């Protein structure tokens, strides 16, 4: 039972994370390969504040704000670059944030990370109750996903798609392309910050190792599998990827074969990607059918 709850919580967190990246990569055509940076910033902000004694709700709120500000700040240099350069620079930005976490021991604990991050007890149950955490996480995730969905359906999302499809046409019709991209990055970073904060409070321990390019790849898989640019795609994709990943962890392997779990995950995800590219390159949910 706990194992099912664990999968559900991980899935819910990754749904928000994947939907956040979707606003950039799927809707705006911004190939941000460093989204994990905002996840890390949210996780660290909430962890540092709450272990320092701040209430968890306030810490999470601060995490969202800090991540949004980080998104706004980094958008200035990143948006000066185009296409491939934007992607590479965003990857470098994520590495920078990870190295910062690794080296600024006074705040982040360096490679040792931050242990004993408190879990919320807002429903009056013990902090160890997974049901309680799932309910809280699902409620917050539902809010975030609804917010992102509304934005995507609104004229705001349509303009982002216009920019994604043809920047010149967007400019010819009076759209300030950079300003729209900046807003998309800011909102997207805020949502990733929320996902990161939930993750920190769930695992109760974070370290720089959690925020490598590995996580970014997992996130991209969620998007590509579900269907980028749609509202339901990232949600479906994140759900499936988390179920597969966590289920593989519980394969009935002999203990001495435990080290095979990670490679098996890699093989399965690789196979899923290859199959997808051949059978359904647009993802399980294609955009035009929306």
């Amino acid at each position: 039972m706990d194992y099912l709850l664990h999968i559900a919580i991980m899935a819910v967190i990754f749904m928000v994370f994947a939907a956040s990246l979707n606003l950039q990569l799927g809707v705006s055509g911004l190939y941000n390969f460093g989204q994990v940076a905002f996840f890390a910033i949210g996780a660290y902000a909430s962890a540092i504040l709450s272990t320092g004694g701040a209430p968890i709700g306030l810490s999470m709120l601060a995490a969202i704000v800090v991540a949004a500000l980080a998104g706004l700040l980094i958008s200035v240099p990143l948006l000066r670059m185009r296409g491939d350069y934007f992607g590479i620079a965003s990857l470098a930005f994520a590495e920078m944030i990870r190295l910062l976490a690794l080296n600024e021991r006074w705040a982040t604990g360096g490679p040792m990370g931050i242990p004993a991050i408190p879990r919320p007890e807002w429903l009056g149950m013990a902090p160890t109750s997974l049901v309680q955490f799932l309910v809280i996480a699902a409620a917050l995730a539902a809010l975030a996903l609804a917010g992102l969905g509304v934005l995507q359906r609104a004229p705001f999302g349509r303009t982002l798609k216009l920019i994604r499809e043809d920047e010149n046409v967007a400019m010819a019709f009076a759209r300030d392309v950079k300003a729209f991209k900046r807003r998309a990055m800011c909102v997207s970073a805020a949502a990733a910050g929320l996902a990161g904060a939930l993750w920190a409070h769930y695992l109760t321990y974070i370290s720089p190792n959690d925020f490598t390019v590995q996580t970014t790849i997992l996130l991209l898989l969620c998007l590509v599998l579900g269907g980028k640019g749609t509202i339901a795609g990232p949600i479906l994709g994140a759900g499936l990827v988390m179920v597969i990943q966590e289920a593989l962890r519980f394969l009935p392997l002999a203990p001495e074969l435990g080290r095979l779990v990670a490679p098996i995950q890699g093989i399965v995800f690789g196979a899923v990607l290859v199959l997808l590219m051949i059978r359904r390159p647009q993802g399980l949910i294609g955009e035009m059918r929306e």
Partner: protein
Amino acid sequence: MLEARNITKTFGGLTAVDDVSFALADTPITGLIGPNGSGKSTLFHCLSGFYGADRGELSLAGTPLTGLAPHKISALGIARTFQFARVLPFMSVRDNLLAVAPGQSGERLRSVFFAPRAVRRQERALQGQADAILEFLRLDPLSGTPAGHLSYGQQKLLEIGRLLIARPKVVLLDEPSAGVNPALIKQILKSIKELSRQGLQFFIIEHNMSVISQLCSRVLVMDAGRLIFEGSLAQAQKSQRVIEAYLGTGTHAAYS
């Protein structure tokens, strides 16, 4: 009202637009003709801000436009099409119109969350407008089709539809009839005339002289980056300078 003074644009050693000055004045539809490579599209890029001119000034009804970014020029009322149709292929025909409608409150984050009813009301009004435009263009049966599935001529027509919803003051059309079949050319001409009656001012690049003669009371002629003639099409066709330009006996002063 659109006025250009001494516009010059060079690419390396090539002067694509060479000291061009003109004013669109009150002519409802002005044509811009000239042989291939004479700098017509480059001039349009300069007028719409897509290229920064090396020299020269631009103004619209007295408002200076020199050096402004394309979206700012567009916001002041100058819309344009591109030489090759540029619709948004993965969006429906109707969304292609809605996406470029001006002044949508739903493009602002605050309005989306805190004034959703106003946003919805505006959206419904825009949808009504878009449907009326599609009906006028006879594209209404294709309203839900991805624009990429349209024929090239229909895509050019859809581009006119975008201008209809954007309601600019001045429209720059780069070869609206190129690659379009005669039936659709008729439809495009009809739409341009209708828009012109509604007060939009047009500046049109065209190689199709029958289109020019049906629309334009005045033409400008470019050759090798220079403006070599201003007047009626009939006069242009008699001008020795213009004939030379088209027959290729003109000196190619642009190549330094």
